[in-house]
């Protein structure tokens, strides 16, 4: 179907000015920061309290006679600062992009409206449905679902039920899952089943997740025991022990840097009073440890009268089995945290 010649509104809409595509390019130019601005954006990462905590740890660890720990903490703090700044910059650009996208959508909507007025109703209708479907990620499939749903409402199509579900899925934003099922040739129910299966811990193949998980846990336990035995056999503060700890720490932090191992519900707000109670206890523990540290003859000389936790654990860590047991506990804590 031929397209009507653009009217004055069309020319305005296609004009690369402050909206539409012109705005996109304009924003892209505006989004490109100068080197100085980029450095300032990177420093925005310093707004993260975690960065300051890491810098404090780096400082105190270094003056306590463990410069390697301090350097590693410094590296992570610098990396986090850079990363947080980069994401903040991207967020700003994405915000501008979203505004541009809204402008473009509004412009398209105007064009569609005009199309109806000029007698291009059928094409416009398709465009509208496809547009909705695209927002639900799978436009064509969702449209079919919506059409079938209309059939169901009038009581005609035998596949109306599926269409109804697909239509609902698209409307309620579950179009992605529904569409995936439809795209791969499965019914939307299959798509939903797969999703429910993932939530319930059952794989789409029907094999329960529990067995695989059990095997993984057994392998992890065996690996953890081997690691704890090997690293625990090295004398404390030796280079082999240091290498083992740094290697595992790097792996775990790298995993955490990318994404959580599994999705967890966002959850609501934590109860304020209960959270404050936790903060009080944990801060009290840190302060107590700090007081003991500062009451030592020096930061690097332990005191019997004011023992730190490190001093109290020295007798256990002096033996190889003791080191292995504490390493196992450290590994278990790490696994617990990685799974958060």
């Amino acid at each position: 179907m031929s397209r009507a010649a653009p009217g004055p509104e069309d020319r305005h809409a296609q004009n690369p000015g402050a909206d539409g595509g012109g705005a996109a390019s304009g924003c892209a130019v505006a989004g490109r920061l100068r080197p100085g601005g980029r450095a300032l954006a990177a420093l925005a990462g310093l707004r993260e309290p975690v960065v300051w905590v890491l810098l404090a740890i780096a400082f105190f660890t270094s003056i306590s006679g463990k410069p390697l720990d301090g350097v590693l903490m410094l590296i992570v703090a610098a990396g986090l600062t850079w990363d947080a700044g980069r994401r903040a910059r991207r967020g700003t650009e994405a915000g501008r992009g979203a505004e541009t996208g809204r402008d473009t959508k509004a412009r398209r909507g105007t064009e569609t409206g005009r199309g109806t007025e000029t007698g291009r109703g059928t094409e416009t209708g398709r465009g509208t449905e496809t547009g909705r479907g695209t927002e639900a990620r799978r436009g064509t499939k969702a449209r079919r679902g919506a059409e079938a749903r209309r059939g169901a409402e009038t009581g005609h199509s035998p596949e109306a039920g599926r269409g109804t579900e697909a239509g609902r899925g698209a409307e309620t934003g579950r179009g992605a899952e529904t569409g995936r099922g439809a795209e791969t040739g499965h019914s939307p129910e299959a798509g939903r089943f797969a999703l429910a299966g993932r939530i319930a811990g059952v794989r789409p193949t029907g094999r329960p997740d529990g067995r695989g998980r059990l095997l993984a846990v057994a392998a992890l336990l065996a690996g953890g025991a081997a690691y704890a035995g090997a690293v625990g056999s090295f004398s404390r503060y030796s280079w082999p022990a240091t290498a083992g700890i740094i290697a595992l720490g790097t792996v775990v932090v790298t995993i955490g840097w990318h994404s959580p191992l599994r999705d967890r519900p966002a959850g609501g707000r934590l109860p304020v009073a209960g959270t404050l109670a936790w903060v009080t206890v944990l801060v009290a523990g840190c302060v107590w440890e700090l007081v003991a540290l500062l009451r030592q003859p020096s930061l690097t000389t332990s005191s019997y009268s004011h023992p730190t936790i490190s001093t109290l654990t020295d007798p256990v860590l002096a033996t190889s089995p003791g080191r292995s047991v504490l390493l196992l506990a450290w590994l278990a804590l790490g696994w617990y945290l990685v799974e958060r």
Partner: protein
Amino acid sequence: MSSHQVTIAGYLVVAAGIVGLQVLATRTRAPVPSLGDLFTRAMRSRTGRVGVLVAWAWIGLHFFAK
């Protein structure tokens, strides 16, 4: 009571507080989040996640590494 005993008693009080709050959170209906909830909340963002994991790595470094 010697300074040594007082210092250790302080650690025990903190440990008892942690255990007590965790029991309150998991065994009663008191409005207290569990330690897991706290960690999950803290680790929702990347900086929080990396911060907690680095703290864990630091414990290993502190007790075992050079």
